[in-house]
């Protein structure tokens, strides 16, 4: 079970799930920033391709049980039936409100995950071990990582490691750690989902 702090979604009826590891990952700072970015981009303009992977829509879609034929407000960012043409806003087709009127693109596999390309290239000859993990706590300069919650673990090969990962959508905030064996301080790098980016990457030099 994974705990998601309620700051990530703004809807009511939230469910907070206990994390069986008992480890609290307080990442509200990054989510607040993400939300701010969302507010700027979600309002105004029709067209489906303008929507960013926002935690919450600025204008929730009305979910009445009976579908109406009148168009919904143009501010709605999700109208898959309309052609992808932001320059000439057309009347968007009514948004589906249930499975009964839902049409899913035949090629859309419904997977809620994204690709993350990792590239580590340290100019270092010392032995190092890399971990990319989901849960961590930060108290000022002190970072405590839960090494049981990782997506990738492996020794660096002469300072480098290149890997492509599939990451669940809600794992928006990860920490990369390089741990050394000679007593040197470990290297930490936080990674946050970048809404602007075409592809998600994590680079450590």
């Amino acid at each position: 079970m994974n705990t998601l702090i309620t700051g990530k979604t703004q809807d009511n009826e939230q469910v907070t799930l206990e994390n069986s590891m008992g480890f609290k990952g307080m990442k509200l700072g990054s989510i607040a920033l993400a939300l701010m970015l969302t507010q700027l981009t979600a309002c105004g303009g029709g067209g489906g391709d303008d929507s960013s992977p926002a935690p919450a829509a600025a204008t929730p879609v009305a979910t009445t049980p009976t579908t109406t034929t009148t168009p919904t407000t143009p501010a709605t960012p999700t109208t898959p039936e309309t052609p992808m043409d932001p320059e000439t806003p057309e009347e968007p087709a009514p948004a589906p409100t249930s499975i009964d009127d839902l049409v899913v693109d035949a090629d859309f596999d419904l997977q809620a995950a994204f690709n993350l390309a990792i590239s580590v290239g340290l100019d270092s000859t010392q032995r190092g071990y890399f971990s990319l993990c989901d849960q961590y706590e930060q108290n000022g300069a002190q970072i405590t990582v839960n090494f049981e919650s990782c997506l990738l673990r492996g020794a660096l090969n002469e300072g480098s490691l290149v890997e492509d990962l599939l990451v669940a959508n809600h794992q928006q905030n990860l920490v990369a750690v390089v741990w050394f064996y000679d007593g040197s301080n470990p290297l930490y790098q936080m990674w946050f989902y970048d809404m602007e980016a075409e592809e998600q990457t994590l680079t450590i030099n």
Partner: protein
Amino acid sequence: MQKFKARTSPTKTVAVNPLNSQIINILGFSSIAIGTSMALFSANTNAAEAFEACPTEAFIVQTPSGIPKTFGVELGTGSYTVLSPDMGLKKSLNGVGFSYLDNYLYGWDYEHGTVGKVGEDYQVEPMTINKDTAAASAGNFYVGDVAINENVWYGYRKGKGLFTVPLDGNDHPMSIVPGSKNNATYNVTDFAFHPTNGFLYAVTNGSTGSLIKIDPSSGASETIGTVITKANGSFTFGAQFFDPDGNLYLSNNGDGNVYKVNVESDDPEAELFSYGPSSTSNDGARCALAEVPVGDSVDFGDAPDSYGTLIDSNGARHGIIAGMSLGILVDNESDGYPAPLSDDASDGIDDDDGISMPTGFEVGESAMLIVTTQGDAAFLNGWVDWNQNGEFDTDEKVIAGRSVSAGVTTISIDVPNWAKTGKTWSRFRLSSVADLLPNGGVSDGEVEDYPLTVTETGVTISYYPSSSEYTTLAYEDLYPNQGDFDMNDVVMQLRISQFSKNDMVRRVAFDAQLVAMGAAYHNGFAVQLPEIGRGNVQESAIDWSMQGVKQTTSPLEENQTNAVLVFSEDLWQHATPGNGCLYFRTEPGCGTQYRATWQMTVPFIDSVHVDDMPEFPYDPFIFATPDTDHGLAAKNITDGKNPGRKLEIHLKNKAPTDLFDTRFLGMHDDALAASQGQYFQDENGMSWAIEVPDSWQHPAENQRVDNAYIEFIEFAADATGETKPYWYLTAADSLIFKD
């Protein structure tokens, strides 16, 4: 007459000054615990009251410096309390026994040369006895016990004989057991009456301890066998006592270690049971008919029981004392709960927080551990089962009695060249006792068990969705008809680990658990690896287990081009509906913490480049259990017979396996478009299965997924996947299943 009241203090509290025989440990509700600072015992010399009932702790009388004191020892952990710092004597009390018949302690009073009677005030009341000639010249006794079937104290002295003192009434003649003088040849420092068979038993002292059985009617002894050997030095078992199961406990004077031996087994052997109070002058008594309880404030580990986790396996256990722990959290258990049913997972409090592993464990290399501890004068011991034999062997001790200061300590350990790759277990114990075995009880500190993974050097592990999380696969099983969209006919959770070196994948591993089944049909579960040929799997080296039990059959399915791993032919063999329930974990009130689990490691013969590997979560699917009904629609397609393997249900757009009957394609709601790589979707693009990369709370029975998760529709409607990407986190609370 002052009575001692049972202290109802909260568990896990305090006290104090560590070390030696003055440690105070408040053990919770069950014991009578008085601190030295609160001397509540009575100075009244009138007849004292008997003990309340057959008490569970062992009484140990020690005379560390001339004056006897009484300790109560919880045998389970070796925790002890000072019951009385003073017994009203100026010389020792020895040969002590507990009378089950009248609930008093009796022992030989050295000051008055007679039997002393001790009530709950712990003050010795010398009895008036009449010694016969032999008794009068026998001197003092340090070996004694009270019989169970008669209220008689027995005392033994080597070379003098076995003597009796009846305890009831007003006459207490002390007489020699006829013929016992010639039999008085054995050398022991205590003995004890067996709870039921009427005989006395003892273990002799020296570098080897022999178990002997003594007939109280003649004093004759019979040697049963050697039960223990000491490498250096010798044993002096000054206190010996029984529990109701015929287990004899021996307390060794020099170090206080308590050993346990079952006297009735064919080949009795003593094992170290717990670490108790030590003293040069020990004598012990115990109501043999009282069980040895675990206690209320005891911490257990959670490794599989082969490592010694349950109390019955003499599992690692620690009396909980505030201020000494691994990490910050410690919780008590009434017994060990081996994973996967550890209380760490079920009660929401994971107190395994003392050890962090920032590096991997590579064969022949060093690895780092970050240890966080609380407590001064603490020692750390640690083991890793490198050879994966299910036990912590002596050569697997990675940290030995290491003194650690409170705070964070970074420790480097070596992974031996002979370590096996794969998942194994480790155990860490913190205590004021420096040298510990991997099991047995100790009075303070904490034990934490951790699974860890050993790899060859240079191996990278990628996990999906992470090393501690699962992805959820939820299926509707009425294919080729669409169902009720509650997406809970079969709900499995899966975690995939991929092991590669230099981008070449050499093996994959699965962790799976069955989360729910809201369907009457029987379904099996399997994972296909598209593009990976069946012939590239090293079938004989597949390592898999169900519920932790190793499986010997091969899960690699025959007659398949691709590698297909079958986890179960019938998931209903791994779950039972709750009382009054039709299904497993879908109807309200039908919950359980239980999960059927699978672990499987699949090695490849030729490594596969990462780019040629199928994307996570590979291709997990359900299939109709052979020879079971799966509905009329299916039967009509498969020649009027039950479909069995011919019917499969995959995630959207994952192609079925060779065993699937292609006649299902395009039938009923299936929108045939296989030529475009589109499978298992209806004409609206909706599928029979979805994957949620999280431990998803599935909808309750008959609750549609779009009602339980209102954001699903918007997510599904946008082919970029960028709308409502966290749809699976926001549920309508009343529509999802809860335990």
